[in-house]
């Protein structure tokens, strides 16, 4: 039980990821697939941010850094900033993927007047 409550953010990441995964594979509507893709990517952001955080830690800015160099910096007081930076890049990638996907959906809708996968496959077979 402690495993579940103590690391609840990781459990949420897994649950979100599975929801997204299901929507991407199981849903027939293309927009729902796209939303599933977004949930999937968001869960990964949650995962990365979780790895960087610590209980009771603060943002990694060393106050009085220039004069207090002789004072030892205790790493456990600061969060790890690197996963956040990585996720900034990943968010940019996500947004552009989302944009391209919406443009593709527009093209699909203009051609078939529907966004239902089965319907499109039926129209294509004709």
């Amino acid at each position, binding site marked *: 039980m402690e495993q579940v409550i103590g690391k609840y953010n990781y459990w949420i990441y897994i649950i979100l990821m599975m929801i997204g995964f299901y929507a991407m594979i199981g849903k027939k509507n293309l927009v729902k*697939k796209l939303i599933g893709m977004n949930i999937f990517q968001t869960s990964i952001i949650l995962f990365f941010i979780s790895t960087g955080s610590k209980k009771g830690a603060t943002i990694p800015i060393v106050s009085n850094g220039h004069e207090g160099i002789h004072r030892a910096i205790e790493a456990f007081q600061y969060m790890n900033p690197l996963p956040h930076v990585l996720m900034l890049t*990943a968010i940019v990638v996500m947004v*552009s993927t989302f944009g391209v996907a919406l443009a*593709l959906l527009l093209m*699909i809708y203009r051609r078939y007047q529907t966004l239902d996968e089965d319907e499109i496959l039926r129209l294509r077979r004709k």
Partner: protein
Amino acid sequence: MTASPFPILVIVVPLISAFLIILLGWLKKSLCYPFMIASLMATVFFSMAILRWIIHHGTLHYYLGNWDPPWGIEYLIDPLNAFVLVIVSVISLLIGIGSKPMVESDIPRKSIYFYCLFLLQVTGLLGIVVTGDVFNLYVFLEIASLAGYALIAIGEEGAPFASFNYMIYGTIGACFYLLGVGYLYIMTGSLNMADLSKLLPDLYASKVVLMAFAFFVVGVAIKMALFPLHVWLPDAYTYAPSSVTSLLAPLTTKVGAYVLIRIMYGVFKPNFSIEVIPATTILSWMAFFAILFGCVLALGQRDLKRMVAYVLIAEIGYIALGVGLANRNGLLGALLHIMNDALMMACLFLIVGAMTYRGWPRQMERFTGLHRKMPITMAAFVISALSVIGIPPACGFFSKWYLVLGAIDAEQWLFVAVLLISSLLNAILFFRVIEYVYFEPVAKESEVKPSEERTKFMGNEAPLTMLIPIILFALAILSVGLLSGTIISLVIQFALPANF
């Protein structure tokens, strides 16, 4: 002359020119194509210079912003990178030259944006090869994929839907890769490939590292369309415009194969995937089914482009098999096949593009009389077909030879059998097409009339800008085959991971 800035120039030149090309296009549209060719030529020059440096001086490092490796991003180029880098840059230059007539007939009004996306795609592929940082690789992977989705969607009727499907699969692949990066980062606190390979061996017993490895391999396998994860490939590559397919089909899958080799034998030490977990065994069985499945399904296709797409799935199987065999000959075969297959696929898809450009249907029953209308293109088709089948002077023979030797060394007789059977199936596939082209009597001259107004000599041959790359590819297939011994002793044997 120092070679130190070349690794970054290889990325920056096509990236900047991708955006300059749009500005240039607003000014004067006709300048776009020469400008793209010029920047691709610069890329080829840089990658050749890198290869030369590597052969003479060994590994090349470039630190972005002068930050030292474990913290900053490092571009590390060893013989393996340099080898794939030259393949990617040379093939994209030739395809870039050949794309002009197709672009101008397919999308005359939007050719500027096509060239921009083309350069972005090349940037992404080159970036994946150059970088020595696992997260940076993810970013380039997505640059390449996003450009690829947009390029594929330009194509014919089913293209946007195929592209959307590809996007769903591609995003799953890229996200899995990203998760793998995250898991490794939790365990080691490093993103640098060289640093990771030093830190990881102590952690091989950990479940998290195992999970990271699994995510990496599955993610990359989706990107390179290895057998059970290939579903997106045939549709996407059939409906995409031929100029796009001839760029994507040879290169994205090969770059994916490069990433797989880099992860399995670079970031992780070879003994992890051979001894700690049976990854290589699983990989070679996946490859086994990929080869069979690709060839058998290709038999059922009447559309030449789709048939070649299925052959491509089988060819990816060859490379994965070589990687999975995990002995010297197998890996030599896999690396050699990365080059040979890139040449063969580029040549075949460019020929398909030339045929559709001249108004021929892609249905192979209607190819009768093609050899008289497009003699040179068809000669190149025969050469690349022979290479895919694996007949000696062509390069496909040599990589298959090494793969068979590798399978014999590993005493896996089933893999030897599947390699020989697939050669047989490829022979059936391509001789069927060749029979339609050369030996079927022309039933009614009036039935097929591609661009009738051109009745002068060679009038129906592909336009010169396409014909030159096709001829060059065909010559390359032959000469690379004859020179494969030299290539192995100069580059590839150093590209093998240590202890092989």
